[in-house]
């Protein structure tokens, strides 16, 4: 038997390579270049290792954001790489991460040049590619507020941005029959916005919070439903990226109210609610059970000793929380340190990145490889609805 290899088996080997190697190997031969750049391969490829993406800035007068990516495996936190911020992101006034899914990040804010334009930027830090999407039909911000969601459809691997408008104040809820452009969806494959084809749009009495988590193709937001000016109940609203259906989970009494003391997160691919005390020195981690009942179980408590304050930002693949810490003695406006908390030993392992941080776990992807870099999607008219 001669020692050579059919093409489809070579592809199996390629699937197991990191993105950096794949980008390099496009130059090795024509057949490898065409394989790696094929839309089938781009869509099927999924990185094997989890990374942590950290966006941080120090508290200096000069606005100076930096990004670093750290491999989340047994070498953590030593394998780290600086990530260049693309011009599209730098062109946002004060960008924040809307969400991350399938290795893509979505950031949002006003455009620095065209000040009335609001933009979302989809960024693949693994291959240094970004595209921007202009947000259309933004309603009067005295009456409405907008939340964004970002996720990649599990079936088609098509990135989708969802834009939801809701009524800010209870006094306006009665007078408004129909929220304009209430739920709109942008799909990268079409490059256009359209109304969501959901059959159950959210009630106009619902008010949304920005905090968003995407797990297994479902968006989750915290929200409150106002049945009167004073009566309200808290929910988790889910939005299925593939079929665009909304569902609600009413939160149990123990976890509701005090939404300013709750945040959602993704722990080992399950939705968890983090409930924290006012001083932010203690976090209870509650997991939402699957199935019809959707009950919550308390998993554990994060309570590091000798700290002024902590913010739990993300979880490592192994489950340890990635936290921002204000150490004892640091004033309230002082710099925060980024660290990993080990619940067993109660150690706080500093990552050496001080400042203000946003952190997202991600795995490498080739999505956006076939898109023109720095392209701006400006189709502001919704696609024709059949």
């Amino acid at each position: 038997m001669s020692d050579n290899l059919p093409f489809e088996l070579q592809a199996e080997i390629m699937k197991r390579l990191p993105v950096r190697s794949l980008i390099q190997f496009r130059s090795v031969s024509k057949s490898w270049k065409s394989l790696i750049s094929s839309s089938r391969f781009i869509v099927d490829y999924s990185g094997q290792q989890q990374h942590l993406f950290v966006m941080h800035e120090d508290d200096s007068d000069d606005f100076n954001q930096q990004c670093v990516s750290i491999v989340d495996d047994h070498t953590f936190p030593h394998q780290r790489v600086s990530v260049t911020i693309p011009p599209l992101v730098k062109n946002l006034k004060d960008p924040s991460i809307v969400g991350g899914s399938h290795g893509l990040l979505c950031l949002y804010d006003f455009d620095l040049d065209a000040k009335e334009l609001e933009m979302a930027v989809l960024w693949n830090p693994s291959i240094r590619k970004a595209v921007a999407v202009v947000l259309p039909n933004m309603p009067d911000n005295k009456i409405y507020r907008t939340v964004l969601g970002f996720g990649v459809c599990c079936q088609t691997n098509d990135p989708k941005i969802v834009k939801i408008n809701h009524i800010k104040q209870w006094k306006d809820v009665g007078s408004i029959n129909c929220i304009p452009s209430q739920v709109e969806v942008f799909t990268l494959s079409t490059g256009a916005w359209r109304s969501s084809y959901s059959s159950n749009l959210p009630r106009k009495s619902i008010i949304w919070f920005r905090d968003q988590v995407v797990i297994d193709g479902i968006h989750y937001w915290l929200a409150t439903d106002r049945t009167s000016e004073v009566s309200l109940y808290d929910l988790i609203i889910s939005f299925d990226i593939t079929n665009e259906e909304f569902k609600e989970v009413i939160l149990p009494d123990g976890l509701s109210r005090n939404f300013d003391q709750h945040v959602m997160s993704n722990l080992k691919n399950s939705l968890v609610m983090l409930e924290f005390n006012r001083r932010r020195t203690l976090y209870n981690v509650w997991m939402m059970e699957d199935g019809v009942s959707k009950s919550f179980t308390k998993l554990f408590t994060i309570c590091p000793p000798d700290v002024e304050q902590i913010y739990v930002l993300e979880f490592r693949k192994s489950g340890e929380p990635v936290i921002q810490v204000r150490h004892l003695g640091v004033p309230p406006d002082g710099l925060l340190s980024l660290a990993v908390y080990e619940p067993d030993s109660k150690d706080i392992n500093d990552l050496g990145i001080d400042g203000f941080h946003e952190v997202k776990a991600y795995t490498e992807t080739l999505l956006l490889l076939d898109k023109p870099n720095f392209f701006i999607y400006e189709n502001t008219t919704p696609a024709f609805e059949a």
Partner: protein
Amino acid sequence: MSFSKTIMLRNYDGETFVVDEVVAVEPQTIEHMIEDGCANTSIPLPNITSKILSKVIEHCKKHVETPNSNEKDAKADLKSFDFDFVKADQGTLFDLILAVNYLNIKGLLDLIYQTIADMIKGKTPEEEEEMRRVNAWVFSCFVGVTCLYFKSKKI
């Protein structure tokens, strides 16, 4: 003592291998052949040499014999076996891929693919040049390979 069933595999070199059925069904291809009733005398595997077939049988045997427990020792033992198993030259590894792909043994296929991927990723420019040279023969023979591959699939 119960009589454990054995299966006969006859390969490219005409050699016959007698294997316990429980080991022989690790490859899905053989499992399906047995289910379809094609295994009355011996199962023909004309596209696999003795050297490769005996290696594959060795791997299947080891994985079948090791208890499927979460016990640290058993896992470490298997890991160390796998680690040594793939310390073969590239030619053998590529022959193994073709055979294991035909026989459809998922676990072993994953192991070999991952081994080769680890060999070629993350190279310095000098190492990349070496890899380029090595891989030149991989797909310079691509055209010839495809013909050979399809030819060899005829049973």
